[in-house]
């Protein structure tokens, strides 16, 4: 039988960043790290796991490892959970579920997910954007690259205006063409950035209905918090950003593992 009190390490192998956390007995992350995924998720995750084990003074057999994220099956683990499951668990256990349905919006590097929980925290449905990367972190990264500005500058520039221009939201390539056209017409960059944020928000709205309380999770909102304000303006709903939003998937995976260990339902290891 698996010891239900084993320390739990969770690794979220995202498309852009790999996030690792070690939970303590009270389900609080005591160690964590965020590092670029690089092109070899397996190597990066293995390195991060070794570093975390060393920092915690633990050996691999002593811990229960759970993985999630885009490349969740690229390293051996005791348990695997989808990123939708991980963010559900992460967000329902961060003090945001208050007897009302919750919608989690996880804006990731390559896809955006909209996850619905009922008032009891039960997952009732979800949507993922289709094949195009419009409305994801990749879209904002591409815009930053085109404008040759950093993420920090991106955020600072967006704070200078409340006015955004219409960049379109159907397709990343179309939006970029539109943005180049706007630049040539002399549209200020800050308005273009706010317009790009609005196009991300529009894609979220197109994904499906949002329930009463909305929480944004994942790495993109950690870097682009203005998205929360714009989504609140567009919907009239309370929108907040999950604490440790970039680590929220990893934390959720760890909480899921803890639950599974407590239930004694995991079939692996």
């Amino acid at each position, binding site marked *: 039988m698996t010891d239900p009190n084993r320390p739990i390490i969770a690794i979220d192998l995202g498309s852009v960043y790999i996030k690792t956390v070690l939970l303590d007995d009270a389900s609080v992350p005591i160690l964590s790290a965020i590092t670029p995924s690089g092109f070899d998720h397996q190597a990066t995750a293995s390195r991060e796991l070794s570093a975390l084990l060393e920092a915690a003074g633990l050996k691999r057999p002593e811990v229960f490892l759970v993985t999630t994220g*885009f490349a969740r099956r690229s390293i051996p*683990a005791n348990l695997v*959970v989808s*990123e*939708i499951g991980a963010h559900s668990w992460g967000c329902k256990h961060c003090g945001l579920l208050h007897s009302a349905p919750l919608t989690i919006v996880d804006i990731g590097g390559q896809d955006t997910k909209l996850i619905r929980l009922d008032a009891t925290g*039960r997952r009732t449905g*979800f949507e*993922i954007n*289709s*094949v195009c990367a419009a409305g994801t972190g990749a879209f904002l990264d591409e815009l930053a690259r085109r404008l040759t500005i950093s993420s920090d500058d991106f955020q600072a520039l967006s704070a200078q205006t409340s006015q955004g221009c219409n960049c379109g939201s159907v397709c990343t390539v179309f939006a970029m063409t539109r943005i180049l056209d706007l630049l040539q017409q002399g549209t200020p960059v800050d308005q273009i950035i706010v317009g790009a944020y609005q196009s991300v928000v529009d894609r979220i709205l197109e994904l499906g209905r949002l329930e009463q309380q909305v929480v944004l999770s994942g790495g993109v909102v950690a870097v682009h918090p203005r998205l929360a304000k714009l989504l609140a303006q567009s919907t009239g709903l309370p929108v907040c950003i999950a604490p440790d939003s970039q680590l929220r998937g990893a934390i959720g995976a760890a909480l899921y593992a803890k639950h599974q260990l407590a239930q004694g339902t995991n079939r692996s290891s």
Partner: protein
Amino acid sequence: MTTCQEPTDQRSRLLAHSLCKVMVKDHYLRLIRAVQDGKPLAWCSSMGPTELLRAMGFEVFYPENRAAVIGAARLAEPAIVSAGGIGYAASACSYMTSDIGSARLGVDDFAQRLECPPIPQPDVLVVSSQQCREVIAWFEYYAERYQAPLVNLILPNQLEDIKPNHLDAGVKDYAQIIAQLEPIVGAKLDYSRLARTTGLARDAALLWRRCLLTSKRCPSPWSFSDQLTLMAPIVIMRGTSECVEFYARLLTELEAQSESQQQSSRIALYWEGMPIWGKLREHAEFLASMQTDIVASTYCQSWDFSALEPEDALRSSVAVYAGLFINHRDCWKLQFMEEMLSTYKPHGIVYMNARTCPHNSNTEFAFPHRLFAKTNLPYVVIHSDMNDLRCHNEPLFRTTLEAFIEQLRENQP
């Protein structure tokens, strides 16, 4: 450790697969010989009046079946690109572009896969109007290419219910196409022969339906991949005694398989929409690793032509072919889906949004929302295509299904 999904499909491979493979090959070899010996050949749309054509003495070939074979062999992409070169858009039906593109490239992937000579050119093309606009455009291409006559069976479409006037109009149109076909075959339609082929098609359909119903048991004795592969005879050979015999044997095997299996806790899904032909085996293994079965699908159900009546062959043929799921209004489709969900009792529904087949994708007009409002059954939408794998994102597909199955498991009482 769970690095890879564990193969957990304990079902033994159905013997029917070997029989089906041999039967299909023999069917095409016999068809080719018959045509070489002077029998006329009709190329027909999949939901066309095959019983009539067989009764009139035609051999019958289905370009749609060829397109699906090209898709399953993952050979569609260069053909689709080639079709684009002559003006068939990448967003158009990928069955059509796969098939037309293959013809344009001069590669016969279909014949190579089946290890048989190329299918002969058609003496006539018969297309029925109720399926989609694309299949008509597809047949027009071949009519021009081979300078063959194109006969279009006009059936009423987008129906709520089939009414007597619909049947009357369809029977009238049958009379017209019979008049067009008789000179090609050089003989009058023998109505007793039509009754016989219609009866055989009906008998095969009744058996096919019973085969599908074996999936009500948990675990299902066959996978979705099995169903899609073993539906080949009902698609290409209905109206023949071989087809009836095949499904009688398959039913016996499925029932035996079902009795030999132990009950287990598996997630059961309903698949609404087109299959992803190039991923059949891969997805079958993936679902097996997730202890999940697709127990029923609109697609496989669409070949249940058990309402055919030999004693009223033409009228019942109109009712059956105009009565396809695809040819109904959403109110009817919602009711049909409710009946299917009641019969098969899945835990959830997977809607497939086929990028190049909007006509057969029920995801764009709030259909999933409307059915959910009626049934409260969870659903998920995946975006892919039946043949064009450029529209398919495998990691996204797996994440979507894994997350959905997790959700269904977590919410089980």
